[in-house]
């Protein structure tokens, strides 16, 4: 029987493979002719329930790449983005990342995957030694854990622990003023939800020691029906609620909590509320939800930030998301690093990036810094305020103090055994 399935045995497949082989041999010549462009690979999620992560990451990248190319490119080389969908599966993310580097000739990687995909791409970066920036994963251990540390990987996403320090401080102040002693939490049951909530509670209790958690609920990610979660919280009669729910889940939860009149019975602190995706979608947004900023064009209240937000909206007909600014920052850092190193080579970029500070519309003081010690972003605008159902959505934001954040973060690392 003819073995038509084994590669290389049937004539047709041999010819096809020889053709492919010929093309692979020819690529160096073709590549030399195109040495003017530099390819940057970007694995991300463009389909499924979290597709908005990928589309807004892509937008954030392209709006900056277009500016750089217009100004001459990276050390004279025009950027060509190769963006590919991993459908949210970590083994696909690993495969796509490898393919981008090995087959498509990408010299740099912008990893716009969510957390588990980011860990998978991190292993690829470790194996291949390719320059990689994680732009969306907020899991602190990705850079805090020394076992994960590799010299060629960076992160420009915000960190859960930073959000929790600022949130805990803000909430503690309000708790003291309004006498909120009994708290409940309701967060999605996965690493981000558990870690962020745990850290928030830790810092809340640090700043307001007589706070007590009377109930906790852990719905599954993308769970459609929150009835048992809402009633469990209501039963415990807390005075305040913390939630790390985000996106569509947060919207569903607000809708369902509304019909139980939950918002009239307790103060709600939802760290992911102040994001345009949620703010513009929720139809009956209750007033007075406390939230951390994700991306708000009025915070920082600078002209640069507002201009960036408006330009993004004009180009893509939707507001930027948290993912948008994190990805834009990665590109901005690469641009500055290549200027400093006068090269677009991955290793030189990595050396230039460590400790680099750049001007940024998203910086707390107008700048952000890529910390050299663990190669993650610090100095970005981070603050909390209360939301209203219409523009500007978060009229007043109380900023976090980066000196305090850094000090507490250092302590946190010690307790986790990361130093």
């Amino acid at each position, binding site marked *: 029987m003819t*073995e*038509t*399935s*084994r*590669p*290389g*045995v049937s004539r047709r497949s041999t010819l096809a*493979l020889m053709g*492919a*082989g010929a093309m*692979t*041999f020819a690529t160096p010549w073709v590549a030399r002719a195109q040495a003017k462009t530099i390819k940057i690979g970007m694995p991300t999620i*463009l*389909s499924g329930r979290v597709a908005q992560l*990928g589309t807004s990451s892509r937008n954030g990248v392209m709006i900056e790449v277009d500016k750089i190319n217009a100004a001459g490119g990276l050390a004279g080389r025009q950027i060509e983005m190769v963006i*590919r*969908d*991993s*459908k949210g*599966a*970590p*083994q*696909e993310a*690993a*495969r*796509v990342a*490898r*393919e981008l580097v*090995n*087959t498509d000739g990408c010299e740099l990687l912008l990893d716009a995957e969510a*957390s*588990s995909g980011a*860990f*998978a791409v991190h*292993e690829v970066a*470790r*194996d291949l030694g390719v320059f990689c920036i994680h732009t969306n994963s907020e*899991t602190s*251990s990705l850079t805090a*854990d020394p*076992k*994960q540390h590799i010299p060629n990987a960076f992160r420009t996403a915000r960190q859960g622990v930073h959000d929790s320090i600022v949130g805990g401080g803000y909430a503690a102040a309000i708790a003291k003023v309004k006498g909120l002693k009994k708290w409940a939490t309701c967060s999605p*049951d*996965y*690493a981000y939800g*558990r870690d962020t909530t745990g850290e928030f509670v830790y810092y809340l209790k640090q700043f307001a020691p007589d706070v007590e958690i009377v109930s906790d609920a852990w719905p599954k990610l993308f769970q459609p029906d929150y009835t048992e979660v809402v009633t469990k919280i209501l039963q415990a009669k807390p005075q305040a609620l913390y939630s790390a729910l985000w996106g569509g889940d947060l919207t569903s939860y607000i809708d369902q909590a509304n019909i139980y009149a939950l918002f009239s019975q307790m103060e709600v602190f939802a760290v992911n509320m102040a994001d345009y995706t949620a703010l513009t979608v929720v139809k009956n947004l209750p007033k007075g939800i406390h939230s951390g900023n994700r991306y708000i064009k009025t915070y920082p209240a600078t002209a640069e930030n507002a201009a960036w937000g408006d330009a993004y909206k004009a180009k893509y007909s939707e507001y930027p998301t948290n993912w948008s600014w994190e990805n834009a920052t990665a590109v901005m850092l690469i641009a500055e690093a290549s200027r400093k190193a006068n090269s677009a080579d991955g290793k030189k970029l990595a050396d230039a990036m460590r400790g680099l500070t750049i001007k940024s519309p998203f910086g707390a003081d107008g700048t952000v810094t890529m910390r050299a010690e663990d190669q993650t972003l610090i100095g970005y605008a981070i603050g909390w305020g209360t939301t209203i159902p219409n523009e500007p959505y978060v009229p007043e934001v109380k900023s976090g103090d980066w000196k305090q954040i850094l000090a507490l973060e250092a302590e946190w690392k010690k307790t986790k055994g990361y130093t």
Partner: protein
Amino acid sequence: MTELQAERARERTIESSAVPRIETRSKRLRYIDVLIAVAAFALLAALPFLFSSKALIDFVIRCAAFGLFATSLNLLVGYTGMISFGHGMFFGLGAYGFGLIMQRTGVPIPVAFIGTLLITTLVAAVIGAICVRLKEIYFAFVTLAFQMLIHSTILSWTSLTGGDQGLRGGIPRPVFLGIDLSNQMHLYIASCTLLVSGLLLMRQIAQSPFGYTLRMIRDNASRASFIGIDVWRAKLTIFVLAALFASTGGIIMSLFVSGAYPEFAYWTISGEGIFINMLGGVTTFLGPMVGTVLLLILNDTVTRLTEYYGIVLGIVILFFAIGLRKGLMDFMVEWCEQRRDGAKERA
């Protein structure tokens, strides 16, 4: 009925059950299988020297992982008629078992490999003992339920499995017998070895008397038990054997991504196994292998061109399910037979 008549009736029953070419496996045929396997391995080993494409190496490694998984599923679906919706649980079990053993203990890779297979045997035996007595669609439901339960446990048991983040930090790959699996070429050769030997073993199982027992069970389980076959035992045996090969596929995947993720134990893996079998065809032994290559090529090409992978995959599935109504290998085998019959008629 006399003893003799009963025996004659039994022989006729065995002959008339729809099994093709029931000659006992002669040494010559087994020899040919081994020869084909060696030739295939030699070709695979030579590939990287003919074409210096890293993507091809990655592609073949993934084909090895999914090919073993899909072919093992076919042992259940095509040869025994047991439609399992939860076979992916063993793929995930293999990945996590191997990953955990390597990360937590310092044993050499072959020891971890054997250890993972032992764990899989145990789990498959327990689950199989509960499941295989159910028939048809209920077997499918309960295997799916078990897979969901295992997936849920992997997600909840964060201290052991890392929860939704999976096993992080990479899988240590200490050198053994001069083989360094962190070197892509060594991993490639190891995967090809596992693939070829796995397929060879599964082929022997399929073509052995046990394999024909399975076909008999597929065609008419009550008739099979009437002639004295312990159907439950046979089904349990093949369930465990199939689990072992699926587990090996999972081990290869965990080495490829240097980790293990809950997605490896999710129903989507079982679903992909079923598509691959449908794409390639369940009536030939190499059908699932063809299906694996097809699906992976389709996946890689389409994700390179568009982000609307769903529409393309959906149309391809419809083409095979409604248009061809059979897998590619089935179609080709039938087409060849038609031509052969046509030639015979004309002759």
